[in-house]
């Protein structure tokens, strides 16, 4: 245990800023999670692995001499088609089934992806160096890599674009209609099968963007997927489905929590604390709900 973080205000500021910038990325992934959960009623355990795959796309562009920031444009395009492919092969068979079936099936996809990435890219921790330099704040006491600012900016940009797209475009309207009532949407002429495929594709594309940004700002590793899934799940259950400001806020909150856990407990307990937080949140939610149920009785 190390409480230095509270004795030096600059470290607190540093942790908060880092956490918020990280949290914006989490919120972007969680937005994809909320989208597919709301529309198709599936929980995708492979979410985190899609993120890591997006990261590897950016990393490969970096290896071949292209600036990894272009991965932000390339990764979502590739990932969109991959997402549609996964939908056609697996997800469309589990959409109407029990939620546990979808969890287990996507768990299988997650293991598959994890291992294929391990074969293709090796088990090393890699990062795509963007050479963006750093910004110093508060008399050089707080260090902010520009790549983190860049990634937060791009995430917000993508989120805003997606919200506008969902509001204005025909497909966006169809997706929202399907989320509200799939059967009614079908009756009114919406091709729900196409909508589902597009939703999953958009989710995968969002993961691709987030992954490319993560490979620039942090590091990626084939086995690092599951924590991202758990984080986005946590953000979605805290914020609720279809509550975008809530997703953004709880994403940032989670980011700050993680940075503080990192300082106080030590890096080796960072992932563990995320998973424990998930358990605590679910238990808290359960007691809150059960009180409500008793009240209703």
């Amino acid at each position, binding site marked *: 245990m190390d409480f230095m973080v509270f004795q030096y205000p600059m470290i607190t500021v540093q942790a908060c800023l880092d956490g918020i910038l990280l949290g914006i990325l989490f919120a972007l992934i969680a937005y994809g999670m909320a989208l597919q959960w709301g529309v198709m009623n599936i929980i995708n355990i492979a979410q985190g692995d899609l993120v890591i795959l997006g990261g590897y796309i950016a990393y490969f562009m970096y290896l071949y001499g292209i600036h990894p920031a272009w991965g932000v444009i390339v990764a979502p395009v590739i990932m969109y088609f991959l997402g549609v492919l996964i939908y056609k092969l697996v997800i469309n068979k*589990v959409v109407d089934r029990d*939620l546990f079936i979808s969890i*287990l099936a996507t768990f299988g996809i997650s293991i598959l992806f994890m291992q*294929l990435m391990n074969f293709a890219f090796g088990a090393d921790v890699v990062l795509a160096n963007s050479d963006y330099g750093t910004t110093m704040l508060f008399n050089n006491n707080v260090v902010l890599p520009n790549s983190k600012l860049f990634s937060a900016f791009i995430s917000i940009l993508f989120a805003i674009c997606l919200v506008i797209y969902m509001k204005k475009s025909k497909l966006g309207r169809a997706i929202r209609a399907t989320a509200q009532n799939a059967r009614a949407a079908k009756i009114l002429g919406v091709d729900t099968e196409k909508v589902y495929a597009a939703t999953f594709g958009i989710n995968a594309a969002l993961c691709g963007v987030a992954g490319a940004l993560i490979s620039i700002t942090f590091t990626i590793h084939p086995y690092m997927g599951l924590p991202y899934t758990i984080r986005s799940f946590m953000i979605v259950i805290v914020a609720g489905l279809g509550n975008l400001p809530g997703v953004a806020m709880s994403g940032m909150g989670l980011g700050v929590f993680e940075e503080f856990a990192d300082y106080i407990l030590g890096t*080796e307990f960072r992932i563990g604390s995320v998973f424990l937080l998930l358990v605590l949140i679910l238990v808290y939610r*359960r007691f809150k709900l059960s009180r409500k149920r008793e009240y209703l009785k």
Partner: protein
Amino acid sequence: MNKNNLILYSGILIFGLAAPFLFPAFKVQLSILCVLIILATTWNIQGGEMGYNSFGNILFYGLGMYLCASVQVGMFFPLAEWTESGGEKTFVHTPTQFFQGMAVGLIVAAIVPTIIAGLIGYSILGLRGHYFAICTLGLGVAAGEISGGIEIIGAGQGFTTPPFPDVGSLEARGEFFYFLSFFTLILTFIAVRSIYSTRFKLILNAIRDNEDKAEAMGIETMKYKIIGWMISAFFCGLAGGIMGGLVGYIDSTDVAFDGREMGVFMVLMAILGGKGTLWGPIIGATIFHIFKEGFWTFFLGWQYVALGVLIVVIVIYFPEGIMGWLREKYPERFGEVVDEKDRKAQVELK
């Protein structure tokens, strides 16, 4: 029917007792099979019968593994020095110490997870459906990550369990662990079978089919859910303790709290054999283990890819499992009275 059962059970018992001498090369594999069957059968108690699909039984398995090994070492030698580095070279268990330690270790490994399941049960089992599944997944992974940071049980570098003492025979180790796991399996089977013939099982099924209705009928669902989970935890802890000694090395995320492997295996085996049946998990575990060993040997390196594909295929195309399929095909054998007219009408409806 009863006579058939008797023949079947005695056949299996004789085969089980003779197996290590018939197939001396497969003793370790057979012991692992026993452990897998225990895990699948006990997962089935709350996963299949109660409808609470848990990814978190790996928590009890891993706890049992660490507890058994720690007790076995800690009873006679300082634990911290043992785990620091190469303690197994400086401190040597005599045979008496080893077996005493193992016995006490297994008792602790069974009881502590049961108590923990009882303590956390009230909070965790109030969650429904997928929230429960994800929460238990989180529990398992969190336990792995946290135990990987605790120094006294070896942290990231792992924990070597006490090596088997020299009792004069090279075969002794394999035979000891085989019979240990086989008798635990028999114990588990008898316990589970007797549970399944009581009212308790019907209550679990009522919880699975409709929990709110069961509660409205006056069943204290929470009490029974916790008891069901505690039974699972008891046998998972035992299985973990045995597996720790069998493998000889405990790593926090790769052996003990291996949610990616064992945690999914137990779910998969139960589903493959058929959830909610007595024999389903046993058949599923046997087939799965044979299949897995085949893959692990012939497709070395690609085993997880095969595992991922296998999960997807089983879950999508075979969710009812082998027993479910048999039940659909030969309903009379399962004691279901089939009304021919009704069946035809249903087929026509389809």
